[in-house]
């Protein structure tokens, strides 16, 4: 069915392919739950990709590379935070500016790093576990970032659902006026959420340049940030659904790559479009699904203050 490809290998590579999307999507999910729409995910990811790559190559350590990636994404998101939270700039426009600026700056920073191999990120040693047929390949053959990405989904789910921090964050996202009236620091909480989103997107970007590809070229993230944004909508702002969405996307990416290799009769260019087209299709299905009161499910689940700026009148 898959052109003679081992299904365990297919699932294993699907998991790896979705890591950047999971990391970026879960970060953006937290940002949006706090009521902030940051459309600059693509820009933060590519900054993470270039900063992570530079950090890894200069220090020779992949772990420091990932830290550098997170830092790069977080720093860029700080610009967004200052513009939208203090200077009350339009969030849609600022997010777009972040992406345009990030694409330019990353190619500026990365120009002397083209064609270099980054240090390796090895698979974790699970010993005999990795030799279990099928499951060994699928579950125990990955590097630490793969497990970290799943753990981060679990952590975000738990924090949002079961902790006071999560409750306050959601309150700020649902009604910033009410949260402000209760004495919560709306702006401070939102900045925290924005920077978390930036760091996670940066981490996802670093995974692209350090593991997925692994090298630096301009525009390396190729729209992954936009797909992460779409997956947040697909997930109706729920962490575990974001994981499912990312795996679905990873599956399509891997499948189309395998079809390309297998020499399917569909031209390469159309196969490469498949992930974007399927993302659109999923958006349509999710947006048109009707919830209570006849409104779209997406419209019902979106944080009520999403995209609105907060200005305390006193």
């Amino acid at each position, binding site marked *: 069915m898959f052109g003679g490809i081992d299904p365990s290998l297919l699932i294993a590579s699907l998991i790896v392919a979705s890591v950047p999307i999971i990391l970026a999507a879960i970060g953006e999910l937290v940002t949006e739950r706090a009521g902030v729409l940051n*459309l600059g995910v693509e820009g933060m990811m590519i900054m993470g990709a270039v900063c992570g790559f530079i950090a890894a190559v200069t220090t020779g350590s992949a772990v420091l590379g990932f830290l550098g990636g997170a830092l790069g994404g977080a720093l860029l998101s700080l*610009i967004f935070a*200052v*513009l939208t939270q203090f*200077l*009350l*700039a*339009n969030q*849609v*426009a*600022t997010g*777009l*500016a972040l992406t*345009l*600026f*990030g*694409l*330019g*700056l*990353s*190619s*500026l920073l990365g*120009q002397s790093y083209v064609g270099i191999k980054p240090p390796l990120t090895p698979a974790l040693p699970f010993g005999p576990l990795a030799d279990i047929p099928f499951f060994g390949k699928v579950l125990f053959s990955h590097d630490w970032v793969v497990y970290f990405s799943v753990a981060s989904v679990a952590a975000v789910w738990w924090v949002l659902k079961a902790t006071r921090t999560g409750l306050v964050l959601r309150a700020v996202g649902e009604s910033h006026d009410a949260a*402000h*009236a209760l*004495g919560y*620091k*709306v*702006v401070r909480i939102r900045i925290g959420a924005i920077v978390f989103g930036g760091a996670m997107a940066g981490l996802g970007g670093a995974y692209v340049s350090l593991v997925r590809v692994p090298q630096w070229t*301009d525009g390396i993230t*190729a*729209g992954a940030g*936009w*797909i992460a*944004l*779409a997956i947040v*909508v697909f997930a109706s702002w729920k962490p575990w659904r974001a994981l499912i969405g990312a795996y679905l996307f990873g599956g399509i990416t891997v499948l189309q790559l395998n079809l390309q290799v297998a020499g399917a009769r569909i*031209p390469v*260019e*159309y196969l*490469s*479009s498949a992930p*974007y*087209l399927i*993302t*659109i299709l999923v*958006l*349509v299905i999710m*947006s*048109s699904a009707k919830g209570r009161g006849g409104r*779209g499910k*997406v*419209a019902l689940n979106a944080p009520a203050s999403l995209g609105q700026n907060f*200005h*305390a*009148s*006193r």
Partner: protein
Amino acid sequence: MRPVQGGGAMLRLEKRPSPSRFWQWATPVLAVLLTMIAGGIMFALLGKNPVEALRTIFWDPLFNAQFASYSRPQLLVKAGPLILIAIGLSLGFRAGIWNIGAEGQYIMGAILGAGVGLAFYPAEHWFIFPLMVVAGALGGWAWAMIPAILKTRFNTNEILVSLLLVYVAQNILASMAVGLLRNPEGGGFPGSRSLSKYAASSNPELIAGTGMHWGVVAAFVAVIGAYVLLQRHILGFHIKLAGQAPRAARFAGVNPQRLVVLCMGISGALAGLAGLFEVTGPAGQISIDFNVGYGFTAIIVAFLGRLNPIGILLAGLLMALTYIGGELAQFMLGLPAAAIQAFQGMLLFFLLAVDLLTNYRVRLAARKEAA
């Protein structure tokens, strides 16, 4: 807990009853100045003399005796598509409809228009070029209708759909350049026949030495058209109303769905036109990378021009200058091409930042202790 935000802050923001007319026009100028300062710092960090770099970008293309004769016509060549696309985008942005996939619509307009032209090759008829123009607009319009219809039918987010379609359009372009539209006499190289050398399909310089081609004419027409639309036509009023007061717009009988289809359609058609004029003129042929990101830069142009037709005209010329000056700086000073892209992004940041002054008063407030 005190419900006073930033308790000890010395600066306080006070919302203006209505946007300041002075700052509405002063903020873009201020943003450009701030970008020059920040850009100068960036150029200095890259080891270039900032004054020399800024002079090469903003002064030499227009007034240096050695380069001006080549650079000045380029100003219109580069500003034409930027203005044409930005005018279309600005209508939607005003109504709160975010078409950010103009790059894809630009590509699809170019492909469809070029396809129509190449279908007639090598015939010479007067109607071929006009037909291509129509096809170009239609291609961009159709590509923009996808996010528009999905939004009105299924409530899908137009920002994400229009952007994702850019990647699809780029893939289609790659396929066209090596497949359907490839020059059969091109020795197997990717890229179509030259449209600018095929007389029936070429979009030549209309007045020698000015850079004026049909795309620039279309851009000027679009500026005037948008100005009249916004100032004199009921649709322009509806667009402005929908953006400023969506609820009031609904009571006034504005149909938001119709507005989405109209705004997306106009911006898509204009982007498609820009693509067609580019591919028949300055670019000359369909190739894998004939698009250079005008569709994205036009977003900056639209905001820099304050979504106002006259403003967009000026902003488009300024942005074109940074492209030309950037190329010159690349050639003369070895400034990396990406530096200009970052510079343009910076401009949008500063613009959004100083926009605060339009809607808010910054007041010095005495430190008040909470009672």
